[in-house]
């Protein structure tokens, strides 16, 4: 399979402009500014069917189309907060090939007529921020940023904005609040950022990988993009495979290939003597799949959704037969409790209660009815919060109980793991 986004990764000094250009970099931008109107780019991206790679999988061209037709300034915000546990693809793109992201970003700004863009990087991406800032400095010097870009009249200023360790900034309105210098409390929607976003202006928020995709879609066209992957699920995806596999890493693959191939072919399968127990396919919030489900499902957005889970951020965590599901669920619950921003009571309190109950079940102190209490709690969090963090905290707990209830019950009765043999706590 032909690689697109990761094609050049591994080339020495790829993050330098000289190297990037020697591999054809910025030719797409030069051509587009010469020959295309902004609306042409919007049309290509819409027709490509590109769906956002950050988590929700919303069609990028449609998102751009929500911008109101008025004369207010528009902003583009690149979401590089990459905090969904199990996800590490954007780190690779920023650190190794920042110009690719930047070219996609400039093309996108041209398309949506934004003259100021922010690249929001999670605060822990120290090297990534350095590399991206270096790429931006080179791009200014080469005339790809600034005023009258390549003589086209386009103007664009780009700022790297570093976060500071808050998962909630991955949610686009939380990110916008953070960008504005505030606590990252997500906003009630509507209004959507397309209308009232950063600094009260129309704002587009796109993921790093999504913007990198734009660069290639503009270069090669919507028809080419539509030749990869099944209908409504076009293009390649950067799968981040981790957990109990032989070769964890980022694998760029066409959407829709069997999920088992990602694990057993590309990630090298499981460690010797182990069998597959479960897969969390799209970051820790995505509902867990049993081994049987994982072996059957295809890896596109729609197929995963049909199987009751989601492709999410592409963070695929693989669990083998040594893992106790009570423990893995507890670790996930601990995370969502830690990262709840505290704005909505159901999430702030509920995530803490879920963690506490899972902790006592894990430690053999579960009380009768605890498992059902967890499910009940989920129904009181789900859909009752401003942002999807509440839902994200419920999915992993609810799905784990539904699919591995015997393990929870066994913990309650016997005060030990049913099948997990190696403690991960």
């Amino acid at each position: 399979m032909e690689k697109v986004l990761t094609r050049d990764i591994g080339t020495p000094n790829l993050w330098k402009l000289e190297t990037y250009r020697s591999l054809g970099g910025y030719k797409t931008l030069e051509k587009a500014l010469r020959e295309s109107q902004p609306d042409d780019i919007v049309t290509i991206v819409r027709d490509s069917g590109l769906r956002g790679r950050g988590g929700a999988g919303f069609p990028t061209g449609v998102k751009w189309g929500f911008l109101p037709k008025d004369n207010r300034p528009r902003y583009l915000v690149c979401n590089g907060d990459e905090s969904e546990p199990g996800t590490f693809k954007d780190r690779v793109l920023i650190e190794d090939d920042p110009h690719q992201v930047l070219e996609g970003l400039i093309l996108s700004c041209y398309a949506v007529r934004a003259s100021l863009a922010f690249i929001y990087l999670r605060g822990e991406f120290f090297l990534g921020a350095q590399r991206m800032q270096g790429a931006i400095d080179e791009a200014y010097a080469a005339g790809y940023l600034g005023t009258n870009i390549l003589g086209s009249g386009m103007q664009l200023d780009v700022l790297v904005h570093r976060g500071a360790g808050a998962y909630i900034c991955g949610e686009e309105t939380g990110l916008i609040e953070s960008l504005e210098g505030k606590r990252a409390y997500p906003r009630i929607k509507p209004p959507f950022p397309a209308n009232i976003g950063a600094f009260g202006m129309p704002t587009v928020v796109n993921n790093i990988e999504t913007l990198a995709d734009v660069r290639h879609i503009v270069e090669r066209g919507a028809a080419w993009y539509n030749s990869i992957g099944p209908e409504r699920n076009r293009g390649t995806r950067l799968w981040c495979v981790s957990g109990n596999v032989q070769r964890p890493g980022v694998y760029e693959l066409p959407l829709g290939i069997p999920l088992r191939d990602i694990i057993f072919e590309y990630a090298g399968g499981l460690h010797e003597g182990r069998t597959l127990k479960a897969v969390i396919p799209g970051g820790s919030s995505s509902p867990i799949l049993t081994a049987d489900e994982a072996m059957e499902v295809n890896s596109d957005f729609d197929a995963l959704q049909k199987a009751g889970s989601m492709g999410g951020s592409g963070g695929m965590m693989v669990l083998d037969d040594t893992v106790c599901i009570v423990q893995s669920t507890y670790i996930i619950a601990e995370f969502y409790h830690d990262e709840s921003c505290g704005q909505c009571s159901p999430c702030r309190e509920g995530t803490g209660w879920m963690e506490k109950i899972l902790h006592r079940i894990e430690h053999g102190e579960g009380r009768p009815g605890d498992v059902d209490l967890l499910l009940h709690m989920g129904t009181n969090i789900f859909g009752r919060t401003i942002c999807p963090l509440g839902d994200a905290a419920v999915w992993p707990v609810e799905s784990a109980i539904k699919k591995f209830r015997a393990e929870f019950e066994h913990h309650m009765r016997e005060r030990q793991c049913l099948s997990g043999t190696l403690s991960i706590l």
Partner: protein
Amino acid sequence: MAVQFSQASEATIRQLLERYPTRRAVMLPALHLAMQEFPYIDDEVCQAVADLLQVPMVDVKGVATFYSLFPTEPHGKYSLEVCINLSCSLNGARRCLRYLENKLGIKAGETTPDGRFTLRGMECLAACDKAPMMHINNEVMHTNLTEAKLDQILQELSK
């Protein structure tokens, strides 16, 4: 005594104030610069940021205390930040954390009495393919940790 940013940092902040649409938006960049200049973000540092941004000091403090990367209390010279999320835990991260706790004689979240090390269990740091992993002072990354590797790292930092 009131604290002051270096001239270089102050100049950087003034440049950013020109580029961002609002003054307050320079909050996180200013706090990141503050981290390089001051040991931690106390009320005086918040006041210095507030003065430059011309925003109320409580707003700066409210932001500084929200984000986990801004330390608002004294901490060790080296902050050992071990990821303990699921993918790292599946590969022994919590054993690594306990190993460090025993070696250093402190619990996660604490600082050694000599002020050299602070140990922290972190949420996912987006390097799950190199699990278990940790950051030191949010800048240096150590991957595929083993007890031998941790010994070596501690030895280097104890010099």
